[in-house]
């Protein structure tokens, strides 16, 4: 038998040839590159009406982890209408966001993404990572009830928008176990109309729980959430007071007033939470209590009576099989004014849904553009609103009201004459100072309330342990503002 061998030299020669071949091949056009020359650029592909050819196209679409299933249902409609398309809805979460971004940096491109878990807010430092949505063919700009096309571009003086949203901002309102409240002999929905009423309600509720013989753990069980405290409660709980109004808060962010002034609107936020602890309304170890595992779980299990929360736990408690009646109340009954304000986050103009730069170079970009247009079409908006229990800022073809429980119990009565909370309720939902000041924010800075790195939790731990005063918190906020923002 002839034994065929390869010499070491031949082996090295073959290896060198293979390496040279691979290097040459890599110099050729990439498979993902857009066709050059006379062909139309991908961005001019048809958007609305006619769907582009779609054989074997897979669209990776990000969603919030919670709403993945309803969003998959919605995208199944699209796949059904466009044979050949597979719409793969996936989700990331706060823990895996960094790894996901590493993956993207390595070349992975999803068709449509969502900023939320990655905590992306488009500004001058990062706007180029997303496509300019105003350059896409999009049929629905005139449907938005705010200037979705220009609001971000006008604020930043940059081409945009880079992201798109259409939902009314989330709001935090009192949410309580109606059965337990009845058992306590309390009826806040009818009895609470002012801050003094609220104080009385809290004191009576606390006394009720203390006398419940262990049936209830807490009346108001507050847990910690960095984003909600730093971005939402911090605005919301100023609205008890006339001098905590939105325009006075915005003035601080514009540099026209000081966060640590004696009449700072933000004093009310810290003072309210300090009072709540001192009066025993909330647990003294609140900064250590987990939002979901402690606060939400005890409410859902019926061991605590109430929370201040957004729309999702209304649904979560119902889904968990909690049989008690869920009732709500706007968060901040007024102290020294007639109007009862309910803060809502402004519509997102610098975050939410986006298409990453580079996607326009993919061969499937025409399909992605078509899908994007469909995703924001009037037929699909109500489905998305109902999935999340929120209202659209978008003109639909037929009247629409979400069946979401928070909206039904609280939201729909605000700003409505003869609503359940009287005639004098109003939304406080304009652009916040945080958004308005974002063009001046220095890259990598911690921002005023330092919530992104959870620094605010340390502030509250210090406040609750007596190491800091409310003034110390405000001084820290002002210091952070000076360090984090360029002068207005």
């Amino acid at each position, binding site marked *: 038998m002839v034994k065929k061998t390869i010499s070491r030299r031949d082996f090295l020669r073959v290896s060198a040839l293979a390496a040279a071949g691979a290097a040459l091949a890599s110099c050729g056009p990439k498979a993902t590159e857009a066709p050059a020359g006379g062909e139309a650029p991908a961005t001019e592909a048809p958007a609305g009406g006619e769907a582009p050819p779609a054989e074997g196209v897979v669209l990776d679409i990000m969603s*919030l982890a919670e709403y993945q299933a309803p969003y998959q249902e919605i995208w199944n409609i699209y796949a059904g209408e466009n044979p050949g398309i597979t719409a*793969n809805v*996936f989700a990331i979460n706060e823990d*895996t966001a960094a790894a996901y971004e590493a*993956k993207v940096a*390595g070349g992975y491109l999803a068709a449509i993404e969502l900023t939320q878990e990655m905590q992306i807010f488009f500004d001058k430092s990062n706007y180029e990572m997303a496509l300019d949505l105003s350059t896409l063919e999009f049929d629905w700009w005139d449907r938005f009830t705010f200037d979705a096309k220009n609001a971000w571009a006008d604020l930043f003086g940059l081409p945009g928008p880079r992201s798109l949203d259409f939902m009314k901002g989330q709001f935090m309102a009192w949410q309580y176990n109606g059965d337990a409240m009845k058992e306590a002999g309390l009826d806040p929905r009818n009895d609470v109309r002012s801050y003094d009423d609220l104080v009385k309600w809290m004191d009576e509720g606390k006394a009720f729980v203390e006398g419940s013989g262990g049936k209830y753990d807490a009346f108001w069980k507050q847990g910690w959430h960095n984003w909600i405290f730093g971005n939402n409660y911090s605005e919301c709980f100023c609205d008890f007071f006339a001098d905590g109004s939105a325009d006075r808060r915005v003035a601080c962010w514009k540099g026209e007033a000081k966060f640590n002034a004696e009449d700072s609107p933000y004093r009310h936020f810290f003072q309210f939470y300090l009072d709540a602890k001192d009066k025993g309304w909330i647990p003294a170890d609140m900064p250590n209590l987990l939002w*979901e595992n402690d606060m939400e779980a005890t409410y*859902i299990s019926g061991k605590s009576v109430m929370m201040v929360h957004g729309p999702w736990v209304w649904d979560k408690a119902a889904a*968990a099989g909690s049989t008690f009646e869920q009732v709500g109340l706007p968060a901040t009954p007024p102290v020294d004014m007639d109007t009862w304000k309910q803060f809502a986050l402004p519509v997102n103009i610098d975050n939410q849904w986006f298409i990453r730069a580079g996607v326009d170079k993919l061969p499937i970009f025409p399909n992605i553009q078509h899908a994007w247009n469909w995703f924001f079409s009037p037929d699909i908006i109500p489905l998305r609103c109902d999935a999340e229990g929120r209202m659209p800022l978008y003109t639909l073809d037929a009247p629409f009201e979400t069946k979401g429980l928070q909206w039904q119990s609280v939201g729909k009565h605000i700003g409505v004459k003869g609503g359940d909370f009287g005639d004098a309720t109003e939304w406080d939902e304009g652009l916040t100072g945080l958004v308005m000041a974002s063009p001046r924010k220095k890259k990598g800075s911690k921002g005023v309330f330092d919530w992104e790195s959870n620094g605010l939790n340390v502030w509250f731990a210090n406040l609750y342990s007596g190491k800091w005063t409310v003034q110390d918190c405000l001084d820290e906020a002002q210091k952070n503002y000076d360090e984090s923002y360029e002068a207005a």
Partner: protein
Amino acid sequence: MSTQFLSPEKIKDTKPPVIGLKGRRIGLRIFATVIMIVYSVVTLFPFYALFIRSFVPTKESSELHLWLPEVQEVSVNQEIGNLAVFYNLDMKAFKIAMGIPETAYIPSRDKLVDVAEKYNLNIADIQQYFEGFYLYNGWNTLFRTSMNSQTFWRALTRTFIVTFFSLLLSIILSIMTGYGLAGLKRKDQMTVYNIYLLQMVIPIMLIILPQYQLFQWIYNLFPQYNVQGSAFRYSAQLIALILINIKGTALSTMIFTSAISGIPKDLEDSAMIDGASRIQYLRQILFPLLKVPIVSLVVIQLPAFYNQFLEPYVYLDPPNSTLLPFIQSAVGQFSTNFQVIYAGVFASVVPLVILYLVFRSYFVEGVMAGAIKG
């Protein structure tokens, strides 16, 4: 210094111990047994608690459960979207089971009774479908539905494939590396060895991205790689993962270089004189002698490969992921289905425990390697 002895009188006066030698031995044995039982309970209890917790739905989660809780059944007035959002109800499986067309859209806010009415279904059938839904939600979601277009079984299979090939190839390559570097007699051998050791100071987090980009660059040479969901793409991603696992690491190099150095060179010389090729020497003489270092490496690397999170998360598409990224995908921003997480963690531990139990004698040998000199 003078030595003092007890006088016979004193010895006579000394009282015998209350417990004799035999009694003390029994006492010691009982004490050791109790300590071991306590230790075992302390070690095993978290696994038990984890298992029980996988049956505890959100509503019962604020209390400690040492046994399966009594859980209510799903009401027909539940909104189907909420069950999908908070309990990972697989809408596709539900539609198939109920005979609803897969392409039909079920609005999130439709209650189960509405669905029954719309599709002319028997309420009893729906109730039967949801029997034990809350109690077994974690395990049902894990074993019978998909998350991120991915099922537990597929993720587990991929984990086995990646772990098996990573271990197999890394052992083969490490033996070859060790064989090449054994003895560290030449300067170039020492240099290569030091380069391997240098990897110990480079954190994986630092190189994961350039490594990934390198693979992307290579794979992008193949147009099929850019077809999302293609078998080529998924296979290439798994191969990339195996390749980064089998690259020479400081640990395997150290183990095999030192083990092979301890094998007399005369053995190789005699094999060569007897006409063996190098491959034959490696396979038939060296390999059997390296059983202990191989087992040592397996003991260390098996859980590391099996429990990999970051690399698969970065390298693999969500529908192609391995076990840990799959389990992690149950974590949400506002809400997390902890039943699935606990069930997933427990289920992912089981195969590893079985492996260790089956091969425990080898593992003990591997762990004890080098502990006793002789």
